């Protein structure tokens, strides 16, 4: 027997004193523990980008500019939230970008073609969006295929249906203007109004964005459902083994993305009065980027709801900041890429430093 260090079973070993640490549960300094949270890296990245543009682009210091940047961030951010939750739940939705347009097209066509109060269109669009989410989730759960494939399919289907149905119904590829119809004013108040804060016009989507983020954070961290989301994203089989309703959780997450698509779709419809059926392509990648920059893993099981808020903010900040700075527009996309990559690297570095033992 060469066993030398392990205590023999049954041999009475003195109980370790309560205050003595074995190294595994060592309390690391608060700052480091904070940094290890998934959203802190992106928070610092966002702060860095913000400070950078405060210096580089004087107009950014103005309140109304900030409102404008936050507005664009919010239209990305509202969708990035459910997309992030879905990613925490271990799935992916490539149809999220065109689904926004599907919802807006549905609402516009239903109320215009049937000459109905616009609220009828709004409600039908919600049902359609939830149904698309349900179908995505149901097919993913039932087939066990990667959601990448399933939602790539829905992405293409929706893209085609958006165009073909719009053309069939309206004989144009854009919907008709519904701004003079009953209920439009009310719906615009709900989805696309703005209010005055100290002389600055603030778009209501910013409020929704932050409220939704707060609700999503609460759900993820404080409710049973939140635990289910992390569990199904971490390991589906063990989650199922301990009694997590995997099917329900995944389908509901896809439907949540549908809800987000509906919400942003309604905002677009009531801001711009009409919708072109070809829009929205490519937006899904921006939502996913915002979630990933915000610390959601592509593999699922980890992430937060507050991270994507900063992710979306960073997107809006960089995109508009370049314009506020008045830089040579030929470099626009390159600037955007460099800034985002830089922010993600800061994020990564912070995480690595913080989680190093």
């Amino acid at each position, binding site marked *: 027997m060469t066993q030398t260090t392990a205590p023999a079973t049954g041999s009475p070993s003195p109980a370790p004193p309560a205050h003595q640490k074995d190294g595994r549960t060592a309390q690391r300094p608060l700052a480091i523990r904070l940094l290890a949270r998934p959203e802190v890296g992106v928070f610092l990245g966002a702060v860095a980008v913000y400070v950078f543009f405060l210096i580089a*682009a004087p107009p950014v210091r103005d309140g109304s500019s900030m409102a404008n940047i936050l507005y664009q961030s919010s239209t990305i951010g509202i969708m990035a939230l459910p997309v992030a939750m879905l990613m925490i739940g271990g799935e992916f939705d490539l149809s999220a970008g065109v689904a926004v347009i599907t919802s807006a097209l549905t609402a516009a066509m239903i109320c215009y073609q049937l*000459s109905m109060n616009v609220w009828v269109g709004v409600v039908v669009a919600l049902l359609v969006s939830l149904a698309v989410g349900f179908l995505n989730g149901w097919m993913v759960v039932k087939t066990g295929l990667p959601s990448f494939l399933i939602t790539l399919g829905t992405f293409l289907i929706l893209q085609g249906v958006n165009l073909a149905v719009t053309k069939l119904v309206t004989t144009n*590829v854009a919907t008709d203007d519904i701004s003079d119809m009953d209920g439009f004013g009310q719906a615009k108040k709900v989805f696309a109004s703005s209010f005055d804060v100290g002389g600055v016009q603030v778009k209501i989507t910013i409020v929704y964005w932050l409220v939704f983020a707060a609700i999503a954070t609460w759900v993820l961290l404080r409710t049973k459902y939140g635990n289910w989301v992390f569990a199904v994203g971490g390991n589906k089989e063990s989650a199922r083994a301990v009694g997590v309703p995997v099917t329900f959780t995944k389908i509901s997450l896809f439907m949540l993305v549908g809800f987000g698509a509906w919400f942003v779709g309604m905002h677009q419809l009531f801001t*711009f009065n009409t919708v072109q059926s070809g829009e929205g392509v*490519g937006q899904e990648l921006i939502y996913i980027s915002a979630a990933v920059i915000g610390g959601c893993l592509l593999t699922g099981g980890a992430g937060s709801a507050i991270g994507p808020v900063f992710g979306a903010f960073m997107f809006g900040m960089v995109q508009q900041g370049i314009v506020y700075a008045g830089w040579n527009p030929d470099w626009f996309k390159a600037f955007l890429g460099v800034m985002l990559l830089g922010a993600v690297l800061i994020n990564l570095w912070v995480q690595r430093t913080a989680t190093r033992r």
Partner: protein
Amino acid sequence: MDRSSHARSRRIVPVAAVAAAAALLVAGCSSSSGGKQSEESGSAASAGKAGTPRMTVAMITHAVPGDTFWDTIRKGAEAAAAKDNVKLVYSSDPNAGNQANLVQNAIDQKVDGIAVTLAKPDAMKDVVAKAKAAGIPIVGFNGGVDDWKSQGLLSYFGQDETVAGEAIGRKLSALGAKNAVCVIQEQGHVALEARCAGVKKGFTGKTQILYVNGADMPALKSTITAKLTQDKTIDEVVTLGAPYALTAVQSIADAGSKAKLATFDLNKDLVKAVQNGSIQFAVDQQPYLQGYLSVDSLWLYKTNGNYSGGSEEPVLTGPAFVDKTNVDTIATFAAKGTR
């Protein structure tokens, strides 16, 4: 009986849902203003039908699907096809390689004529030569004003983007603008860059270029607002498509700017904006006419041996200015989606 009452209640649910929906319909959910009911019903332009033998024309464009501009081109082509007893096969792909494949496909189908856009002329060169070798008459439209002749196309219908841009630039100078921003919704698009370059050439003031994301309207709106905030001296915004112009109207309001707005291209909502003065003027390259003439010229060539433009000069369809002075005449046609 438990079971039967269950079954009944299950039957009741859909019935109730339908009843509720019907009640909703009747009980004042309908809109008293707007909507299809109030839409003017005008019939599209129609000039009877030719008795010539049926021929097939393939129209192959570089359009991104779902864009109102290309829809108008297609409507023009369909109107001409209906009149000329032509079977129109329409296809499009924004990727130049794919578009070339579509032309090859038309050649394989042995169509009687091809109308093609040469947005990326070099990529189309080989396949255009093949079509000619196969004896298929081929006309160009919309894109490729510099290349149609060297590639041996029969005719060309469209506007010269640089010429149109210059015309806008000159008009802006005449209207007293000093600092214009030209908004490009797709970075690196040859025709769009040419338009802004044209504006710069014709305009005596300062011209800046701004790139925006055409697939994301809220982002587009924010970006134009940002630009107007960054440079308060901008007094003219030039957009390169109708939907972008309508969004830019909101950006100008958001930025609290006094800038005026001029745009390329037209649609029915834009006509209203010109009427109410929120858009100063639009330059129309008449996409309906481009589509119509492309098909019609192939029919004329086949039935009467005509060469539109004499195969020497392009047939220009624009720039036609639409402003307060002539917008009312155009409004009735735009309402049908043909202008």
